[in-house]
């Protein structure tokens, strides 16, 4: 199969759509048109590629983990999105959207953030392009990711506290959408994952496709023309996962998404509609959205992007939950064996590889290392000491 254009309605099988307040419909349609136009324009592509190369530092390497491979009995390759400027994959999408926003004549950006990585990336692009920027962040996350909050402020961004509900990523999305409803003429909503109303799930996937395209080529060289047996990534909203999956969806590689046990929307597989699209969603018996609970702020989200629900429902990818305790173990495992400190989000993918080592024995596994763990070091210090 291939990952296709979901059309003007933004459908991935039965999932997706544009479930937004009427006020935002014209903006979503305008964005769909503008993205289609830009993505077909070689000039736009060239400008984005230049930024990805000269500014963000792409291509990111693929690192073979000899020590970890020996310890697990599994050949582990890492796609090093942690080495991008700002420390995660998020910059790919943000540079694309900021460039698009500029092309559309928008002068301001608004974003939500969980771990702060998307917020930092957006603040960075805003500084680069000379745009005003507001980032909404849940009160709980502001505490556990205070370093990123300060980085955003240094970059000239206004960080606003989301105090409603669970005071995490879900509520930051609510606040960002409410704000967008009131300033939609001048402001682009720079959504940070492959979720939300059309065209976001599709557009964000396309901006992250570079991860999968590069990795496919890098694996071809490394594996003598072959592909890895398994491609694995953590899944919050699903942007780093959909980016790397997009390079391998048409191969025999098995695709595995790893969810936090406290936010395992795909594993539970109950469809719902919130934040603009129909997708799997954690909810109670009445359809009230439940609060996710995860050690990692970036995965602390009760929903998932619609294309992941589609990939799960047709059986092309499988999704597995790991516990916070397994993640803490995996965080230390990669740090100790390879000298690479992963983001807690990315450690979810490592945690599954470690748990599934028997099933994976002798296989080659490509892990998307979506981000570096500097931001998580204070949190880990509290947990481990």
């Amino acid at each position: 199969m291939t990952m296709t254009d979901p059309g003007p309605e933004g459908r991935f099988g039965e999932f997706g759509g544009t479930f937004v307040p009427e006020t935002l419909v014209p903006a979503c349609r305008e964005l769909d048109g503008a993205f289609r136009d830009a993505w077909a324009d070689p000039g736009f592509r060239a400008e984005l590629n230049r930024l990805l190369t000269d500014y963000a530092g792409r291509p990111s390497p693929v690192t073979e983990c000899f020590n970890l491979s020996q310890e697990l009995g599994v050949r582990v390759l890492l796609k090093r999105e942690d080495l991008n400027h700002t420390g995660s994959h998020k910059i790919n999408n943000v540079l694309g959207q900021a460039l698009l926003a500029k092309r559309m004549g928008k002068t301001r950006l608004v974003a939500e953030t969980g771990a702060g990585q998307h917020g930092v990336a957006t603040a960075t692009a805003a500084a680069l392009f000379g745009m005003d920027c507001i980032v909404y962040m849940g009160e709980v996350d502001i505490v556990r990711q205070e370093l990123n909050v300060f980085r955003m402020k240094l970059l000239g961004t206004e960080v606003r506290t989301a105090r409603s509900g669970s005071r995490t990523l879900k509520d930051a999305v609510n606040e960002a959408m409410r704000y967008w409803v009131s300033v939609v003429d001048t402001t682009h909503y720079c959504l940070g994952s492959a979720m939300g109303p059309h065209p976001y799930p599709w557009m964000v996937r396309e901006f992250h496709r570079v991860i999968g395209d590069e990795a496919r080529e890098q694996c071809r060289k490394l594996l003598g023309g072959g592909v890895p047996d398994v491609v694995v990534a953590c899944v919050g909203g699903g942007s780093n996962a959909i980016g790397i999956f997009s390079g391998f969806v048409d191969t025999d590689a098995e695709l595995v998404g790893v969810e936090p046990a406290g936010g395992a929307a795909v594993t539970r597989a109950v469809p719902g509609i919130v934040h603009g699209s129909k997708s799997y969603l954690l909810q109670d018996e009445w359809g009230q959205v439940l609060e996710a609970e995860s050690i990692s702020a970036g995965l602390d989200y009760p929903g998932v992007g619609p294309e992941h629900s589609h990939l799960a429902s047709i059986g092309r990818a499988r999704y597995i939950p790991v516990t916070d305790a397994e993640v803490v173990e995996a965080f230390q495992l990669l740090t100790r064996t390879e000298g690479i400190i992963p983001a807690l989000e990315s450690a979810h993918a490592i945690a599954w590889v470690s748990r599934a080592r028997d099933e994976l024995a002798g296989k080659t596994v490509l892990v998307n290392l979506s981000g570096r763990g500097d931001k998580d070091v204070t949190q880990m210090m509290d947990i481990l000491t």
Partner: protein
Amino acid sequence: MSESLETALRARRGSGGKCLVPYITGGLGDDWIEMVRAAAAAGADAIEIGVPFSDPVMDGPTIQLANDRALAAGVTPQSVLDTLRGADIGVPTAVMTYVNLAFHNGYRRFASNLAEAGVSGCILPDMPLEEIGPWAAAADAAGVETVLLAAPTAPDERLPRICERSHGFVYGVGLVGITGVRSELAHSAKVMAARLKAITDKPVLVGVGVGSPAQAVEVSEVSDGVVIGSVIVQRMLDGGGPEGVGDLVSEFRTALDSR
């Protein structure tokens, strides 16, 4: 089956009056249904009943707080409908909530639950025209009037399609933003009303950002009336009770009647 929204609102308009539709958060306080009755007795033409949802993205702080309090008290869509079912309110009601509560229940079941509870209409602000198909089929079959919102950001070509698909009335959004009281009526409110009045014979009510009797009168120079939400809910949150809500609705009624 209760009277339709459209019949009630056309009757008010036909008699030369302006329509007044207050919003009340279902389940906010044990005596919320008394507040609904008080609003009806004070001259409301219909009542919007908010069914609390966990993530109300179209709502500002006042209605968010009301939602949170009601949810914390254990209010569910069913408990709201159960209370409405037995209540003799005297004017038609419309449920306002978010699409996931209908979707999770199943559109057909949700629509028939509304009809069976005597609710005339339904407003789902995060379900635009593009996505309305499956719900509209279920609502039409159950005889529930689906009221659509029209926003100031809509291009002209979009409005006739909204007006055509909207039943009960057309809900003109008064400003580019979320619910909440503002100190002045936005310029966009009358413009929105005028754009809609020019293309539809259905009742056109403006809501969102209409928070005082003077603002209601001002926008009703063009519209057929108003929906008032946050100002009422604030009175509920402040402990105004049925009497306070009734008094507030009376002030709006009097102002609209003595234009």
